[in-house]
Structures are given as C-alpha cells and as structure tokens.
C-alpha cells in the first residue's frame, strides 16, 4: 500500500516524461552530438571534435557571420524590450485604469497575435515598399518625404523596422501579463499611497513597478528566448539571406542557411549548423538559469 501510494504520481507523470524525452531531450542532445561531426547531409559522417566551434568562433568568414548574427540578436532583444515590452507596460497601466472600452482595446492589441507571421511579413512588406508602399506615401502627404527610406533595404533601418513589426504583432501577450500583474496588486496599497499624497507617477514608480518585477522578469526571459530562436519574421521580411548585407541576420537565419538551404551552391554543413544551434541553446539556458538565481535570492531576501 505504502509503495503504491508513492508510485501513483510517477505513473501520471510517465506519459509526459516519455514524450518530453523522445521529442525534446533526445533531439536536443542529438543535435549537440551532431555539432561534433562533419556531415553534408548525404555522405558519411566524420567525427571532428570541436572543429566546428573553432571555425565558428575564429575562422573567417564563419566568425564574421557568427558575431554579426549574435550582435544582431542582442540588438533585436533590446529593441524588442523597448518597442514591445516598454510599450506594453505603458498600455497595460492605461488599460488598468477604469476607462471606457478597455475590453475593446485589449482585443485590438491582441488581434495581430493570431495572424500568421508570413502574412504579417507580407502585409508590412507592402506597407514599407519604397515604390507603392503606404508609409513613404504618407510621409510625402505630411511633407516629410525627406524621411522616406527604402526601409527594408537600408542597413541602418532594416533591423529596427523588423523589431517594430515583431513588437506590433506580439505586444498583446506582455500587455495581458502586465495587466494580470497589475490587477493582482491589492487596492489598499494604492489607497495608502493616495493618503500619503502620492501622485499617479510616483504611485506607478513606488507601488506598481516594484510589485511587477517578477512579471517583468518572466516577460524578459520569454522575450529573450523568443528573440534568440527567432527566424520566421526575418525570413518573412528579408528571406534567408537576411539582407541588406546580413544587417538582419540572426542566429536562426544563420543556422538555417548553414544547415539546410544556402543559396550559395555549397553543400549544407549539418555539423556547423548544429554548433550554431548549440550556442543558441547555451545562451538561452544560461540566461534563464541566471534569472532564476536572481529571482530566488530576491525572494529569500
């Protein structure tokens, strides 16, 4: 009886564990193993030790592409933190006030989330097109045509523009998370603050913000994991070549070109691609662990 009682939870966990092992853990470790091999996808596989990582970190042109993609990923992350999460926090605070139609606005902000990324990329490519795009035409109408750019073809603007489109699509999620966080803050705290003579800004600064730190942390980690595995939005807007001249190349697109389908004519390099994937995994794993560590210390303090 005693043994059976302890076995039951494990029995319930078993199916999930099996699926997790077979479809997630095994492929992840298999891909790490692949990063030690040289394989063009067809011929024999050769064990090459850490040679793929050496090429990725130190050998031109692979290192140039790698550090460039890494830099772009970091830039993409900070742009998303600002354009998506910063804006989401602002909108969540507004929506938490008792304003009219706040339910409608919640739906509106969430709506792009359910559109396919390829559709979003297509629509925005039309908007940003330098010849018939709405954006440059609008700038012309309001006499700002000197600001018109070939947005997605301008090395300085392409990545920020894509980060904006990405934020536009996914802003609904952080808004909802921030809103839930704000609504969980007890009303008494605000009342007490009001009695102490706080204005709206200092209430936000001294009550809302500190109590939202855990939510902000989770949103940041999710954003980081999302950004460092991003591929589809870049693919939808710039193709796998991530132009102009790799200015929108991230680890995901670099991985795709290396491991599967380069347009370069060279046979694919599965091992080198797996090395890139391993680096992506390590970055996300370390950042997540780092956040948990910080969060744990904060809680125990």
């Amino acid at each position, binding site marked *: 009886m005693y043994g059976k009682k302890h076995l039951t939870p494990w029995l319930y966990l078993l199916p999930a564990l099996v699926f997790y092992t077979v479809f997630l853990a095994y492929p992840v470790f298999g891909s790490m193993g692949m990063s030690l091999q040289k394989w*063009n*996808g*067809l*011929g*024999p596989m050769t064990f090459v030790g850490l040679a793929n990582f050496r090429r990725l970190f130190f050998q*031109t*042109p*692979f290192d140039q592409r790698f550090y460039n993609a890494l830099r772009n990923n970091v830039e993409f992350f900070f742009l998303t933190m600002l354009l998506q999460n910063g804006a989401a926090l602002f909108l969540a605070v507004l929506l938490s006030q008792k304003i009219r139609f706040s339910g409608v606005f919640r739906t509106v902000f969430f709506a792009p989330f359910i559109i396919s990324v390829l559709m979003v990329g297509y629509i925005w*490519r039309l908007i*940003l*097109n*330098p*010849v018939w795009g709405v954006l*440059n035409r609008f700038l012309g109408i309001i006499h700002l045509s000197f600001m*018109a*750019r*070939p*947005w*997605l*073809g*301008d090395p300085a603007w392409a990545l920020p523009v894509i980060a904006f489109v990405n934020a536009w699509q996914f802003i609904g999620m952080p808004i909802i998370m921030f809103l839930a966080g704000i609504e969980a803050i007890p009303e008494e705290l605000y009342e007490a603050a009001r009695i102490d003579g706080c204005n709206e800004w200092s209430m936000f600064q001294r009550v809302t913000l500190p109590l939202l730190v855990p939510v902000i942390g989770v949103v940041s980690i999710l954003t980081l994991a999302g950004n460092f595995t991003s591929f589809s939005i870049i693919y939808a807007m*710039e*193709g796998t*070549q991530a*132009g*102009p*001249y*790799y200015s929108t190349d991230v680890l995901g697109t670099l991985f795709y070109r290396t491991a*599967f*389908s*380069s*347009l*370069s*004519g*060279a*046979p*694919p390099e599965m091992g080198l691609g797996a090395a890139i994937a391993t680096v992506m995994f390590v970055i996300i794993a370390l950042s997540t662990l780092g956040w948990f560590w910080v969060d744990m210390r904060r809680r125990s303090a």
Partner: protein
Amino acid sequence: MKAKKQPMLLAAVVLVLTLSVILAGCGTQAATGKTVVLRFTTWRPTDAAAFAKLNAAFEKTHPNIQIKYQPVQPTEYDSQLSTALDTNTAADLMYVRPFDRGYILYQSGHLLQLTDKNVPNLKNIPASQMQVYQSPHGKIYALPYIYISYGFFYNQSIFAKYSLTPPQTWHEFFHVMDVLKKNGVTPLALGTKAGWVIDEIVSGPNYVNFLGGEKWRLAMLQGKKKFTGAGFTHYLQEIDRFRNYMPQGYQGIGYTAAQKLFLAGKAAILPGGSWEIKSLEAQNPNLKLGLFTSPVVKTGGKRWLPFNGGAGVGINTKSAHIKQDLVYVNWLASHQAQVMTGNYMPGLFPSASINPDQLTNPLVKQFITAAGPKGENFAISWPLQYISRKEPSANTLDTDNVSRMLNGQISPGKAAANIQNGLATWYAPFKK
C-alpha cells in the same frame, strides 16, 4: 455464451483476412507478369501534369515498364532523399541537383555512371550541358535533362510607344534605357533587396559576352584569368551603371516586387530567368511580353547564351531494375521526349539540341534558338562550377559584393578584389 464465442470469431476473421492478403499478393504478381514499376522522385510537384503526359507516351512504347512519378516539396527534397538512400528505400530514379550539390550524391556512391554505351542518346546533349553533371575526372553521373537560362523580358507596348527595338549590343541597351528614363519610364524592374537576384540573374550570367563566355570561364577556373583583371572589373563597372536605371528606393525592392513593377507596366525591362515565363504570362495575360538575351559588346561576333543547370536524372546504384532505368533515361534524352519537355514545361528547357520550330511558346523558341543548333553558344554562369563548393563560395561573394556595389557602398574594383581574395582563401588554383 456470446462473450465466450467472440475470441473464436475474432481469430477466424484474422485468419481469413491474412489468407486473403497473401492470396491477393500472389494474384497481382501473377497477373502483371514482367511489368516493372520504376519509382522516380523529383523536387517538382508542379511538373506532375507534364510528367503524366511524358510517362504516358513512354509507357505506350514500353508496355513492360511503368513509371511512378513521386515529387517531394523542393525544400524537403534533399533531407528526404538522404534518409531514403540511407535506409535503402530510395526511388530507382531521382532528380539530381546541378554542380556540387549533385556531385556529393555521386561521391557517396549513390549514382550510376552514365556513358555513351549504357545511354546512347547522350550524344544528343551538347558538351557544355554535360559539364553540369560531370565529375572533375570527366565521369557523367546524371542525364542533363533540363536547364534554365537568363535574359531580359521587356514590355513590347512601352518599347513601341517610344519606337525602341530590342538592343543587340550593350551600347544600344544603355541607349534604350536612356530614352526610357528621359520619358519618365523606369527602365529596369530590378532591386537589390533579394541578394540572390543580383548574383543569379544579373552578375552571374551577363559576363558571357563581355569576357568571351566559356573560354574565359575555363581559364578563370584554372587560375589563368583573375577577377581583378581589367576584363572582369570593366564588366562590373558596366553592371554598376544599372543603378542609374533602377526604380527609386531599389535597395528596398526584392524579387516579387520587381516582378510586380514590370507586370503593372511601371518598369519596362525585367532582368529575369527563363522559369518566370509561365508565371509572367499567367499573371498578366494582357502584357505583350518580349525577350532579348544578354547583349554583345560588338555585333557580328558570337553571342553566348548564359545558363544554369536545372535538373539531371540519376539512377540509384541500389535500384533492382537498372536495365529498365537505363531504358527510361535514354528515352528522356531522345528528341521526342526532349521536344515534349520543351512544350510541357515552358521555361525549363530540354538540354538536348532540338529543332526550335517544334516548340510552341515563342519565348521558349527564342531562348532555344539563341543556344545555337548544336548548343555551341551555351556558357555557364561564372560562379556555379567548382568555385561555389565551399564558403566563402563564389555565389556568396557575388551576392555580397555586387549588391553592395549597386547600393553604392563599394566600388567595382573593390568588389572584384573581394571576390578574388575570398576565393583565394580556399580555391587551390587561386592560391598561387
């Protein structure tokens, strides 16, 4: 009572089913006799209808061989084929990619070597086309089945309006574009946003008549001609002039946007690939589509036609029906099958030299005529063979540097030097 009987019933059903399956198996084998079914895998689901017609024609004259066309999505093709080959479940016949991506199949021992003896109709294929599926030691490992070519599509109505004729020389080409520009028409439907377009459609093919086609290319591959030489640098300077004729904001215009500009009549000339013929005609049937191939520097000389391999047909070394495979491949190389291919897949051209008069689409006819009666005008785009085997590959270097040149970021001389130096990091003949 009932509950007890059920297992017996189940057993009986299973027995009957098993027997019937076994007997049915015997039956089909006995009924079809010697008919052999060959599986043929390709990355062209869109050509299924064309192959249905082709294979019906084949089966009419070869009643004992049946072809089963098994296309796979192009993006999945390589990985699916590799798994199938590893597990010995691959098709008897397969599409083989041009140049190095196909060569690795042969290197891994998956492709049967083809010769004049086992495929007599190889004699119909020009030597320039053979190179696409040839090992460095001269072994042919796939039938050069279809190829693609490059040229300039133009809007006949716009040309007529300004009484322009399709240019023969580069000088005339630039003159035509000057006239268009003066009249407020964007001459070129071209942008640099999709880097591959600049490599594959612009810079890769158009060297042919500046530098002397195959002769220059083969000398370059041996390290006897350099990209930094006067010839290639001058070629890039001429290509660099294109940016005066491209639409405003061309840095933000990609492949489909350029097509749309042309189809909407907003730009007069579309540098394009032959595979676009079908879709251009379908998207705007009212547009009067004209074509001129890569112009020459001076009239009177040879006019090379740039091309790239499309697909080869290879035979799986592990196929159980090699004899029949060879019969089919030989038939695909016959005049009859090649003419049918030219008519059923407009834009994907048959590799054998055929009589252009047998082709129905006028643009297809124009391309095939430009190749010359024996295919003597064919010249492979310069980045494709040998020098795109590794990174930085010629295609990558061409994409990166010529795009930046057209965006005004580097000079033609710098672009040429970057290509030369990039290849010299690994391509042996350039290291000297």
